[in-house]
C-alpha cells in the first residue's frame, strides 16, 4: 500500500483533513475522497477546465494540482458558492441566460468566472473570452456563457 499523507486544508471556509497518496490530484481528492463531485473530470490533463477550482485566490485546474499541495491552503469549489437559501449572482446569471445545456462544464465555467470577477469586476468582452478560453463546452455556443458573465459582472457591481 502506498504511503498516505495527512493533509489539512480549508475547503469552502471549513477546515478539512484528509489522507491521500502523494500522487493523487486535488480533483481525485475532491471527487473520490471527499465526495465533492461538483468539479468534473473532462480530460485529466489540463485542457478542458471542467475541474476548475480556486486555490488561495487563484484559478487552477484541480486535475493538475496534487492533493498534498493544498496543505495549509484554501480551496473554493462550486459547492461553496451559493448561500444556503440564495444562489450566487454568477449562478443566477448562468441560469437566466440559459448558459448551459448538459451542464457538465458549468461548474468549471462558474468557478472560472468567479476567479475573473474577483480580480477584475468589470471585464470587457474580450477579457471574458480570453479568461474563459481554457474552459471547453461541447453543447452551448459559448455566446450565452459570455452574456451570462457580463450579466453577472453587472449584478455584482
Amino acid at each position, binding site marked *: 500500500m502506498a504511503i498516505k499523507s495527512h493533509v489539512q486544508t480549508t475547503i469552502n471556509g471549513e477546515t478539512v483533513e484528509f489522507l491521500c497518496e502523494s500522487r493523487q490530484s486535488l480533483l481525485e481528492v475532491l471527487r473520490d475522497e471527499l465526495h465533492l*463531485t461538483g468539479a468534473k473530470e473532462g480530460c485529466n490533463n489540463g485542457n478542458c477546465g471542467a475541474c476548475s477550482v480556486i486555490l488561495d485566490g487563484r484559478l487552477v485546474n484541480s486535475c493538475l494540482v496534487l492533493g498534498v499541495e493544498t496543505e495549509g491552503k484554501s480551496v473554493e469549489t462550486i459547492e461553496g458558492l*451559493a448561500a444556503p437559501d440564495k*444562489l450566487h449572482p454568477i*449562478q443566477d446569471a448562468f*441560469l437566466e441566460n*440559459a448558459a448551459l445545456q*448538459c451542464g*457538465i462544464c458549468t461548474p468549471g465555467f462558474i468557478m472560472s468566472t468567479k476567479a475573473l470577477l474577483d480580480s477584475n469586476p468589470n471585464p470587457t468582452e474580450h477579457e471574458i473570452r480570453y479568461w474563459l478560453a481554457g474552459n471547453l463546452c*461541447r453543447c452551448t*455556443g459559448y455566446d450565452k456563457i459570455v452574456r451570462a458573465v457580463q450579466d453577472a459582472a453587472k449584478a455584482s457591481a
Partner: protein
Amino acid sequence: MESWGEASESRLIGKRITRLSGKDKVTGKAKYTFDINRPGMLYGRILRSEVPHATVMGIDMSQAEALPGVKAVIPLIESGKKLRYQGQEIAAVAAETDDIAKDALRLIQVHLEALPHVVTEADAMAEGAPQIRENWAGNQSEPSINKNRDVAAGFEEAAVEVEATYHTPVQTHVCLETHGHVAEWEDEQNLTVWASTQGVFGVRRDLAQYFGLPPNQVRVITEHMGGGFGSKFGPGSEGEAAAKLARITGKAVKLMLTRKDEHLVAGNRPSMTQHVRAGATRDGRLIAYDMRGYGTGGISSGAGFVGPYVYHVPNTRTERVNVAVNAGNQRAMRAPGHPQGAFAMDSLMDELAEKLGMNPLEFRRINDSSEVRQAQYTLGAQEIGWHRRNNVPGAGNGVKKRGMGVGSGQWGGGGGRGTEARVTINADGTVEAVTGTQDIGTGIRTAIAIIVAEEFGLAPTDITVKVGDSAPGLPSGGSGGSQTTASVAPVIKTAAAAAKQKLFEHIAPLLEAPVADLRVGTGIIYVASDRTKTITWQQAAGQLGMESISEGGHWAEELRKGVVAGTQFAEVEVDTQTGAVKLIKIVAVQDCGLAINRLTTESQINGGVIMGLGQALLEERFMDAQTGRMLNANLEDYKIPGTFEIPEIKSIVFDTHRKVTGIGEPPCIPTPGAIANAVYNAIGVRIRELPLTPDRILTALAEKKA
C-alpha cells in the same frame, strides 16, 4: 383531433423558459454517472491495445491479480484473436482505488504478434496494401451505385461543368462527460446500472441480453448526462465489463473511459472523399451529377454521406464505397453523413454559380424546391447583409479580407411510436410526469413540464418530471435522430389531457356544471359559461381525498411532423498573412416546427452551429501511418471550438407549423458549407478540404500567386 392549439392560446408553449434542472447544474448538485459514488465502490479500468493490428498470443494477468487492492482482472479478448485498432479492449480490472487500477493495467503482460496495418484511406486503397478486413478486396466494400435518369444525356444539356474533389476528415464526438457506467448487483439476478447514455431502455435491453436476465431485472439510471451526440447508445464493451466486474467482486464498480479512450474507441464521424462532376444549364438549372466517393468508418462500415443534397438534380449517378482502416469504429455523429455531404454540395453549388456568372443565392433559389428554405434565404440574406458581399471573390488589397457564404440542410426529426408515459395528480395538488426518455442536455425534462403545466394551468416548476430511469417500466426510445421531443411530447400531452379530464369528472358535481363546460385558468378551474364558479387547483385536487389520478398517454400522429429545412449564412474575415479564419457572424435560420421551449431550442441551434464550426475550421483526427496510432487523442491537439472562435450567432427559430419536431441535429449541417463558401468569397481561392486551417489557407494563397 388532438392539437396544440393556437399560439395566442398558449401560456407556456413556445415561450422562453429556463430549464428545470438548471439550479442543480449551477450548484454542482446534479449527479452525472461520473459522480456516482456507492458504498464500497471499486474503480474499473480497461487495458487497451497500443498497436493497430496484431494477434494476441497470450495474456498474463497474474501479476496484476497479485497487486494488493486489486479485486478482479478479466480478459476482454481471447488468445489467438486479432486486435484490429489502437484502443481495442484487452483486459479490465477492478480495484479499490483508481490509481491501483491504473497500476494493475501496467502489470498485465500481453504477448502480441504484430500484423501489418493501414490507417489512412490512401494506404488502405493502395496497390498491394495488406488486407485488413475479410472479404473486402482492396479493403473496400462492394460499391453502392445509384442512378437516376441518364447522367450522360444530362451532361449534353449542360452549359457549364465543374469537376472537383472534396474531402472531410474524421471528426470525433468529444462529449465532455466520457462514456461510462457504475454497475451494482443487488443479488445474482438484479442489476442496477448508472449509465452515461442516450438510451436508457437500449442499455437495459442489451445488458439483460448479455447476462441472460429478463429486462425488468436490470435497472438503468441516467439522471443527468454530459453529452452524447450519437456516440452513447448501447452499453458497449465497457458497460459489459463494468457489470461483469461488479458481479465477480460483489461490489459496485465505476468504469469511465479516459479522454484518450474517447478519441480512440468511442465513435467518430467518418471521413468523406468525393470526386464529383456536375453540370448546369445556361439558365441555372442543375442538370447532371456524377459522383464517386469513399470514406472510412474505421474497421467497420457506415461511412455513408449524402449527395446530391437538398438541391434537385434530375440526372445522377453516384457510387460509394466504405474503406476499412485499422482505427476505431465510427458511430452516429450529429446528423450522420449530412454535414460532410452538405459541405461538398454547397461548395459545388458556388463553383457552378460562378461559372454561370450567377449570384450563388439566385442559383440556389432556382434549384431548391423547398418553400420553407426559399423564405429562409430571404430572411437570412437580410440578416447577414448579403448585399455587402464581395461581388468579385478575393477583391480588395487589405491583409484582412472579408467574405460571405451560404449553406443549406434538411433533416427528419418527426419522432415515432413507442413511448409510454404517466401523468399523476395527487390530492395535495402535486403533479408528476414520468417517462423513460432521458435528458442528454437538450432540455426534454423542461419540455415535459411545460406541456403538462400548460394543460393544467400551472407553472413548469410545479411539475415533478421523472426521466432517465427504467424502473417505472415506461419505455421510450433512444435520444437519436432528433426524435426525442417529437416522440415524447404527444404522449405526455395526451396523458395530461386524460388526467385533466378525470379531474374534471371528479369536480363537475361540485361546480354544478357539465364536464364539457370546465376549463383551466392560471392555477384555477372554472366554468366557462359562468365564470363566478371557480375553484383553485389545490381545492380541485383536494377533492380526490385519499385517491390520486394517474393516466397514461397515447401516440397522436397529428401532434408531430418531421422534415425540417435550414439555411445558414456566414461572414468571415481571413488574415492573408497568418491564414487565420475569424468568424464574424453566423445567421442560422432553422425550421423548428412548434418549439415547445424557445430558449432551449435556440441553445440547440447555437450548439449545432458551433459543432459545425469546429468541423469547418479545427477538427481532424490525425493518424500516424508508421505506428498506426492517433497522434492527437487529447484535447490539446484535437481542437474543439472555444470562446475565441465564437462569432456572433443569430439563431432564428423559424416557425412553420404548430406540430412538434426534433431539432438536435439539423443546425450543424449547413455550417461547414456556409463557412467554406465565405472563405472563398473572402480570398478568391477555393479550398476543397476541411478543416480550413491556416496552413491550408496559406498554401492555397501561395498557389494562387504562383
